[in-house]
């Protein structure tokens, strides 16, 4: 039954098309049936699933040889009143089931259909249309979000981790509603975006964070979409699949289709409610030294350096007398989750609708962080006449975030630093219970109780479409769509917090508006000639315009802590920013196949961008591809095991200009550099901002994909394999220039990057019995990223941990190679790369990178009677993380009372013969932080989610007019296997401003472990 539900949702689109066909092509026969005076037979029947016995509502019944046709109602029942005499033959078909031919000789009958597990009739959404999966030339993965939508991540793209081969997704950061790290077939760019294009019901949706205050706390606008409104998610990966999106397609495309009603469908009301809790297990907290241990390490360091002791009886007290205080218990909490959805789905003869409302609340496992979303969805399809249809999709949501800052420069307002970085022997409160501040950090109690920091996103995503059948073969479609997001941030720091003390109260208020519209016209022609030549042509134009503007006001110097609005501040400043870019495009596609055996597809798109100068702005992006269904050949017909064998090859070019500045090619001066002419009154001033580059143009990525699809035993097992090679040229690159030019970087087209990889996925129906079903999906991918051409190496981060240079992958770490600790002296041994007997910057080298050698997911679905279970494991092997927390926490005691010392420091070398990785305490062993010993293997295997559900027997529920009642349990991150010493091997720093900083674990809350219970009701 679970499978049926899945299939039903998978085929919703095909269903709609089918109904259109029924409604627009066949009605004359239906009317003919009703008016026919000649009645020779009456047939009552019912169509059921052969295994579950569920009625198949909407199944099609056709009398063989003539076009007399009807459909089953919601109980699977149908009537045929015809002039035909018994016996006659009917064809009974239903999407996802094998069509059955039945000879009828008398009424009533029951027809049982078998599930067709081949998936070959799967319809997938591709750019500007749909295709049957069996006829695909490109590589498209279809993901059913149903099973993962209860993972406590706000954004659907994080939830589908492990479900699609070739799609690398990091499991979030433990900050609800934060952005997602996603790479489809590797990373193609250094300075323009590596994120895929997201399309929701035809609307291109902005996925970059609009956070303006402390913009490194990136949030995801995709979290504004309610995952339970999503019907299917398609990931387009190769050149043929993405070429129709031209300049937007180089990093892959993710198409989201939301739920819609069906014509003539009885209204279905669905209620889903769930709640639960998440937490970080204490074993995953950072392990700090106790007070006495901290003092002991500091004293040992001072002894070794010849410095006087500081933990003395008449000073701070002897080391062994030091107390220990626990700040992590103040920061952590059990986060509560709640999720409610209500939807109405149905349709009349000419109208269909899907209307839903949802609320989702997620607390963070660290105090002050939280996310909640209220969302509405209205999708309507209306037939105006037989030839004209209009549709609309609308999402309106309000996402509220309580923002907590995990890490900050200098530590003001930073949760991690106020918690973990302070030595544990220092008290949290004084004798009177007043919060104490230490080092240069806030008090964690004050920070978690007094911070006032929110972001609210009011987000509308909508589109209006019209479609006209000019002739039965030629369709014109026009659409206008809008992605509007008003992102409002407010923060106030009172004088109990450092930021507030610094400025006698500080408030910032920021309004960011992202206004993005698309107007699109397409003409589609489809024709089948002689039942073997299938031709399809698509022509289209598109205009896109994006405006991003911001107004920020800031106030300092407040009368007292009761005044929190900027109007009360003595000093007020305002700033404003504005950027706009336009894109004009023309695109075309030709599809041809011969007997659905030899398939061919070609695409061409031209894009013009306002980001480039007049001479450089147009880019042309072609692709060609073909597929050969070998299994359709005559010589394969005697094969029984191998039911499908298809070879796919395609090649194409896509572009990229996303993520670069709107006015990137111009030489610009900026204002805001005011200075007095005399006295103190500032007058306006200007200064150079960026260097001109009139030759700036598109970054281009070519991609070759070879794939083989194999179906075995009538589709019980399906295997898809792909090999691809992507090659990016003219990479948009902020080239470092000698700083004596007055500039640090310069944006140009320079550099080449390659991604090569293989993907393997297998779906198998292991058991399909009446009372027991078991299916398995497994996918594994490998991507090899390499910077092929780069003029000069470039480093990122203050300490320049991350470096890109020719011949190594992106996200490579440039460190001093730690060889060990000398057992005799306890001194650190660093590889002397240039063998000049001294350790200088010339001895830094690339020691590894953040990419996994391979990654993937394993899903098992079970149904046992009325119980169902879903188990998803995700894994990654060979990826490394820079454990910055540990690099700072093992400071050798040199920072005395100013920094925490991690418990791992206790393994230090103490006497000759000690074998350890932690050097003898002393300045010279701890003056280099960029040591490879903190670059750790972060391979993992994680039980990402486990769902168990129970559907109450129908006999019980129908009594209360309930179609279906299911209760379920969802657990996430219940089990983790990793060697990584930090709390979470998938964690990463929030550094929205530089995408090249990856694999960097600094002060992020780990992904929580969670349990939730829920209830799903359908009327």
């Amino acid at each position, binding site marked *: 039954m679970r499978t049926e539900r899945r299939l039903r949702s998978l085929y919703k689109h095909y269903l709609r098309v089918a109904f259109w066909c029924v409604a627009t092509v066949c009605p004359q026969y239906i009317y003919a049936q009703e008016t026919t005076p000649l009645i020779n037979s009456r047939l009552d029947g019912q169509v059921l699933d052969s295994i579950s016995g569920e009625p198949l509502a909407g199944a099609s019944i056709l009398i063989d040889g003539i076009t007399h046709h009807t459909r089953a109602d919601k109980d699977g029942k149908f009537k045929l009143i015809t002039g035909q005499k018994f016996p006659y033959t009917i064809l009974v078909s239903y999407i996802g089931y094998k069509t059955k031919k039945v000879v009828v000789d008398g009424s009533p009958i029951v027809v049982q259909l078998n599930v067709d597990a081949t998936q070959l009739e799967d319809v997938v959404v591709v750019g500007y249309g749909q295709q049957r999966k069996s006829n695909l030339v490109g590589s498209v993965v279809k993901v059913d979000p149903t099973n993962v939508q209860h993972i406590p991540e706000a954004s659907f793209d994080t939830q589908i981790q492990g479900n699609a081969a070739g799609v690398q997704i990091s499991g979030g950061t433990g900050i609800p509603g934060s952005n997602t790290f996603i790479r489809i077939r590797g990373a193609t760019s250094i300075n323009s975006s590596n994120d895929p294009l997201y399309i929701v019901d035809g609307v291109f949706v902005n996925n970059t964070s609009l956070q303006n205050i402390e913009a490194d706390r990136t949030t995801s606008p995709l979290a504004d979409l309610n995952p339970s409104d999503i019907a299917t998610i398609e990931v387009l990966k190769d050149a043929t699949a993405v070429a129709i999106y031209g300049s937007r397609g180089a990093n892959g495309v993710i198409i989201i289709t939301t739920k819609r009603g069906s014509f003539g469908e009885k209204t279905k009301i669905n209620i889903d409610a769930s709640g639960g809790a998440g937490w970080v297990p204490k074993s995953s907290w950072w392990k700090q030294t106790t007070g006495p241990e901290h003092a002991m390490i500091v004293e040992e360091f001072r002894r070794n350096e010849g410095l006087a002791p500081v933990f003395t009886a008449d000073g701070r007290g002897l080391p062994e007398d030091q107390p220990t205080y626990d700040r992590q218990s103040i920061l952590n909490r059990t986060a509560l989750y709640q999720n409610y959805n209500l939807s109405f789905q149905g349709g009349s003869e000419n109208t269909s609708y899907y209307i839903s409302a949802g609320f989702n609340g997620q607390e963070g496992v660290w105090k002050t962080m939280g996310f909640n979303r209220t969302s509405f969805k209205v999708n309507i399809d209306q037939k105006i006449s037989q030839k004209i249809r209009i549709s609309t999709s609308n999402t309106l949501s309000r996402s509220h975030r309580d923002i907590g800052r995990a890490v900050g420069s200098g530590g003001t307002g930073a949760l991690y630093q106020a918690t973990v970085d302070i030595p544990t022997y220092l008290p949290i409160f004084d004798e009177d219970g007043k919060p104490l501040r230490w080092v240069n950090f806030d008090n964690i109690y004050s920070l978690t109780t007094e911070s006032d920091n929110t972001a609210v996103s009011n987000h509308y995503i909508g589109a209006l479409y019209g479609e006209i059948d000019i002739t039965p073969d030629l369709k014109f479609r026009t659409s206008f769509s809008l992605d509007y997001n008003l992102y409002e941030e407010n923060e106030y720091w009172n004088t109990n917090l450092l*930021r507030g003390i610094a400025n006698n109260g500080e408030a910032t208020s920021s309004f960011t508006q992202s206004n993005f519209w698309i107007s699109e016209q397409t003409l589609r022609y489809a024709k089948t000639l002689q039942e073997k030549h299938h031709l399809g042509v698509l022509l289209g134009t598109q205009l896109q315009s994006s405006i991003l503007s911001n107004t920020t006001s800031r106030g300092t110097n407040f009368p007292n802590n009761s005044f929190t609005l900027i109007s009360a501040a003595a000093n007020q400043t305002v700033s404003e920013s504005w950027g706009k870019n336009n894109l004009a495009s023309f695109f075309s596609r030709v599809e041809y196949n011969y007997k659905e055996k030899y398939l061919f597809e070609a695409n061409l798109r031209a894009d013009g961008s306002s980001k480039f100068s*007049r001479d450089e702005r147009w880019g042309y992006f072609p692709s060609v591809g073909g597929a050969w269904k070998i299994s359709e050949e005559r010589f394969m017909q005697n094969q029984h095991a191998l039911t499908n064998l298809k070879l796919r090859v395609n090649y194409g070019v896509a572009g990229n200009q996303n993520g670069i500045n709107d006015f990137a090619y111009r030489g610009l001066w900026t204002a805001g550099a005011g200075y007095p002419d005399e006295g103190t009154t500032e007058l306006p001033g200007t200064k150079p901002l960026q260097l001109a580059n009139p030759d700036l143009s598109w970054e281009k990525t070519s991609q070759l994909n070879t794939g083989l699809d194999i179906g075995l035993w009538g589709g019980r097992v399906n295997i898809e394999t792909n090999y691809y090679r992507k090659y990016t040229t003219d990479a948009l690159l902020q080239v470092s220039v000698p700083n004596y030019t007055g500039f640090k970087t310069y944006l140009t087209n320079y550099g080449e990057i390659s991604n090569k990889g293989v993907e393997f996925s297998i779906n198998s129906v292991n058991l399909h019995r009446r009372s027991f079903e078991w299916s398995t999906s497994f996918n594994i991918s490998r991507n090899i990223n390499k910077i092929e051409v780069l003029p000069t190496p470039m480093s990122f981060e203050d300490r320049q941990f991350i470096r890109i240079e020719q011949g190594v992958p992106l996200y490579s770490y440039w460190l001093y190679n730690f060889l060990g600790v000398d057992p005799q002296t306890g001194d650190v041994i660093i590889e002397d790369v240039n063998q000049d007997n001294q350790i200088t910057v010339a001895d830094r080298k690339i020691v590894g990178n953040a990419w996994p050698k391979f990654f993937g997911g394993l899903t098992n679905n079970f149904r046992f009677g009325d119980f169902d279970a879903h188990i998803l494991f995700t894994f990654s092997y060979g990826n490394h993380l820079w454990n910055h927390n540990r690099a700072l926490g093992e400071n050798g005691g040199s920072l005395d009372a100013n920094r925490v010392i991690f418990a791992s420091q206790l393994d230090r070398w103490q006497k000759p013969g000690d074998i350890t990785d932690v050097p003898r305490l002393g300045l010279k062993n701890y003056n280099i932080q960029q040591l490879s010993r903190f670059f750790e293997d972060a391979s993992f295997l994680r039980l990402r989610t486990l769902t168990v559900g129970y559907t109450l027997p129908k006999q019980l529920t129908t009594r209360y007019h309930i179609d279906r009642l299911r209760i379920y349990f969802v657990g996430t991150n219940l089990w983790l296997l990793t060697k990584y010493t930090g709390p979470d091997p998938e964690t990463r720093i929030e550094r929205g401003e530089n995408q090249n900083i990856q694999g960097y674990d600094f002060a992020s809350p780990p992904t929580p472990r969670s349990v939730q219970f829920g209830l799903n009701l359908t009327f």
Partner: protein
Amino acid sequence: MFKKIGIGLIAVALIGCNKFLEVEPKESISDELAITDKTSLNTAVRGLYRTLADNGYYGEGYVNLGFVPSGEITYNVFNNVSNLNFRPDDAAFVDTWAAIYATINIANHIIQKAPQVQDVNLTDIERNTIVGEAHFVRALAYFDLARGWGGVPLKLEPTTSLVSNEQIARSSREEVYAFVRQELDLAESLLPEEVNRVRATKYTVWALRARLDLYTKNWDEAIDYATKVIGLTDAYKLVKPFSAWFSNGAVQTPESIFELAHSAQNPSGLRTRMSLLSNGGEYRYAPSEPVVKTLQHPATGGDRVALLDSATQSGVKLYAGALYYRSPATDPSYVLRIAEQYLIRAEAKAEIDDAAGALSDLNQVRERAGLQALTTQSIDVLKDAVLEERRLEFLWEAQRYFDLARTGKLKEKIEALKPNLTITEHLNLFPIPIDEVNLGGLKQNPGYE
């Protein structure tokens, strides 16, 4: 056929679309429009000063390089500069170098474009003043580079595109100082004689000239120029008490010959890093124990104890700098003060064996700081006394490291304060930032290769 139609469509649309694809920026303006008339020339000059006061340069970065590697500072966070562990990949050097050259680039723009500006409202005097200011700032920037890094590349043309980007080799330190002298001569001829403590005037040029002559050991000229500035008694004087030039929110006091203004919009970075937590700072570093003791002792510290702030936290007394303390951080960046002119003249007089003259200048500064006058006649004692006076007078300004490096006392003084450090000869120069070596083809300073 469809492709042909497609291409035809594209051809037609290309023309129509170009208008749709022209989007003009609002926040910024194109290079060509940056300096065209009097107004835009004036805004560019203000941008020049703002860049000079940038957090990479006088707003924080360069000032830190002046006082942090002195043995007087203990960092509360990981920091290599305070331990004189200079590294070519350290952001402290990389960012400061870049900020100085960004300043030079604007000066180059103004020097090149100002003579071409056609505007009836722009008088010759105004034009000369602007060009003179640009020459002064360029002189200051190259002086600051030379005293830190030694010889540096002399970039004298504005950078507008990278087509003109050929590599420039390092000139020698002497060549750079000679260039600075030439720039100051030009500026002197162009600038008016007037008092403006936040912009360059002829007086400002004299004050920097005195410092340059001190660094290049032109003792007589140093004395001449310092005397000229000290002689402007209506404009500049040693304000009393010592703290009068910075405390209680004071700005642009007669003490200042040249200071850079900061505002709520453009705050100084120094204050955030220096101030105690209780004053809303990050308290990243503290004055070391010896200098705290020296300042606290009335006989050695006098009124200069005002340069220290302190707080008691759970029974532990913490010390911090007190020169940059305001909220919002409108603390000026002090570039040239009258006290320095006295000390320059004292040092130069001592070098030419004029003990009485040296003692007189030194004692004026000591007296202002609330200290006993010295009476020694020994030239060696006097030279040391001037250096010690500079140590305390400029504790939080861009002076101490450069003083120690130019007098050859880096090793002696720092090892005395921090016995666990070993100071080697190469530390008298900063390392050239790594990218400048790799990309710019510059030769690294010895000891950092």
